[in-house]
């Protein structure tokens, strides 16, 4: 079949061309239809590709083979993530149509509604491009495509502060992307190649011999530092997360269900691909892992403390987003934790989608997110039930999938004899339960004198997320097996 030959390119080009068509429609509903059909089709060919994926699928643009031409490469590391982000966008479009209309496009000029869907698809094409390319410069171009669309998506909301947040994001994101570009230049000067597989083999041949040219090693270390700082700044990981607070807390929460769930996943993917393919593992892995581990410890302590201290429920969720990144770094710095890392990423991302969707149902009715002056929710029994379940699943209390993962993390840390880390993770888990308690108190037990609101929006999305939570909980062992299989194929 001839389709399978072009799957790598099609997965990027379908959202890209759908975005162009959306711009040309000048009609809100038509562009929604185009976007939904395109993403559903993309999801289908993604699933088709993973069953055809015995060996990595390699695609050369214009038949120019690898070190010269641009290569797209699908393997077990990126194809599951591609399927997952297609699924998230499909969820966002299908179940969130009413919320998109009520909380985002209401603040856009009537004639420009179709542009929103077009930007969404451009950002999506950029993300899939970052995931599937095997060429470093192409990676930079796709990072910029996705972020240019994301800056504009952030700038829309009921609060004019969103513009300031988007501008901050533009400045910081461009600094990050430029640092990545400089790092790519260093790699190019070292190896004369831009293809990741090619760079990996050249570095392996030149740097594993006993006599290491110290001058060249310095350049390699500089390149690695530039890349890591760039990605950490771009994806708002802990020490450089300050811009994320402003950008996220002022933009519409419903757009965050898509962006917050995906951008950290992409950042972790970029660091992982970089660490396992570009850096020669034994040479650099140990110092990098020590740096990451200390960053993770500081991130876990400070973010859980700040989340507990925060008085705004939107900020609590955003701090908990950056707290999870601390856990991700901790697992990234421990070598045998790769399968656990994927489980944590997926479960956490589903949690965040649930929380932000719930928040946007509330945002539709009120702009007040302070813990003590929240309006009371009345007459919406189903919403209260679903919100309670979502907070329960997110809080990592027993009988939730997050709890199982936490237990596995404890087990792993004890096995690795990392006692300090173990104590910190236990403390932060307790903090986590406490700030979820605060969150639940603000939503369910607010006073009637602050005002009353009634949630009357379509709750199908929340029902779907709770359903997904229950499925992941029941089939946790199957997920563990699949992740174990995937991570074993990556290392081999």
């Amino acid at each position, binding site marked *: 079949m001839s389709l399978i030959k072009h799957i790598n390119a099609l997965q990027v080009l379908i959202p890209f061309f759908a975005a162009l068509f959306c711009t040309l429609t000048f009609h809100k509903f038509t562009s929604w239809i185009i976007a939904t059909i395109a993403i559903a089709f993309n999801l289908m060919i993604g699933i088709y590709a993973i069953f055809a994926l015995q060996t990595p699928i390699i695609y050369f643009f214009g038949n120019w083979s690898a070190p010269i031409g641009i290569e797209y490469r699908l393997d077990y590391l990126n194809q599951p993530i591609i399927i997952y982000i297609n699924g998230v966008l499909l969820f966002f479009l299908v179940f969130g149509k009413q919320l998109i209309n009520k909380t985002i496009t209401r603040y856009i000029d009537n004639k420009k509604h179709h542009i929103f869907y077009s930007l969404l698809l451009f950002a999506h094409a950029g993300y899939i491009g970052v995931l599937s390319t095997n060429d470093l*410069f192409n990676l*930079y*171009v796709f990072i*910029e495509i996705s972020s*240019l669309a994301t*800056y*504009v998506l952030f*700038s829309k909301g009921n609060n*004019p*502060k969103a*513009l*300031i947040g*988007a*501008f901050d994001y*533009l*400045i910081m994101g*461009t*600094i990050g992307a*430029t640092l990545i*570009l*400089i790092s790519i*230049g260093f790699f*190019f*000067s070292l190896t004369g190649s831009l293809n990741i597989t090619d760079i990996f083999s050249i570095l392996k041949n030149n740097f594993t011999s006993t006599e290491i040219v110290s001058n060249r090693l310095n350049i390699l270390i500089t390149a690695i530092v530039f890349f890591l700082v760039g990605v950490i700044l771009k994806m708002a990981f802990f020490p450089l997360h300050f811009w994320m607070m402003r950008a996220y807390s002022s933009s519409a929460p419903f757009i965050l269900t898509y962006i917050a769930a995906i951008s950290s996943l992409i950042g972790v993917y970029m660091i992982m691909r970089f660490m396992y393919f570009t850096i020669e593992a034994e040479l650099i892995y140990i110092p990098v892992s020590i740096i990451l581990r200390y960053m993770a410890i500081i991130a876990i302590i400070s973010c859980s403390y700040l989340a507990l201290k925060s008085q705004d429920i939107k900020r609590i969720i955003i701090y908990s987003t950056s707290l999870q990144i601390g856990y991700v770094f901790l697992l990234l710095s421990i070598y045998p934790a790769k399968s656990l890392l994927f489980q944590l990423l997926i479960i956490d991302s589903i949690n965040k989608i649930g929380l932000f969707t719930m928040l946007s149902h509330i945002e539709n009715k009120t702009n007040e997110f302070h813990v003590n002056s929240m309006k009371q929710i009345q007459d919406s029994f189903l919403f209260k039930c679903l919100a309670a379940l979502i907070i329960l699943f997110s809080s990592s209390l027993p009988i939730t999938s997050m709890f199982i993962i936490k237990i596995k993390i404890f087990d792993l840390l004890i096995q690795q004899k990392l006692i300090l880390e173990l104590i910190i993770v236990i403390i932060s888990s307790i903090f986590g339960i406490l700030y979820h308690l605060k969150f639940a108190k603000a939503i369910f037990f607010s006073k009637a004198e602050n005002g009353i609101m009634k949630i009357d929006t379509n709750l199908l999305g929340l029902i779907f997320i709770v359903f997904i939570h229950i499925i992941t909980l029941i089939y946790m062992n199957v997920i563990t097996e699949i992740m174990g299989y995937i991570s074993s194929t990556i290392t081999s």
Partner: protein
Amino acid sequence: MQNIIYFFAVLVLATGLFIMLTSDNYLRKIIGLGVFQSSVLLFYIALGKMSAGILPIDICAKLTECPYSFSSPLPHVLMLTAIVVGFSTMSVGLALIYQIYKEYNTILESDINKKEDTII
């Protein structure tokens, strides 16, 4: 002395970063962004140049017996893309500044922070 160009590239990079992080006016921040991005152009193009290299044009009959060495054309091509990316980033930034001006009637960061405080 042949590496002095990289020193200048770093100088331009630091200047751009300084302008971006210290200025109060949003337009100046965007100008700083432009300076910051052009340092990368300098860095890449310097990478492609060899001291005795000529333009990469096919002037020899046989490549193995060619007396000349050539500069690499690839960094120039890459920078063409980077210029376009920088241009589009700058346009989005200017559009955002225009929207900020319409919303707040000022583009000074300190004024906007003051206004935000009074609103809250």
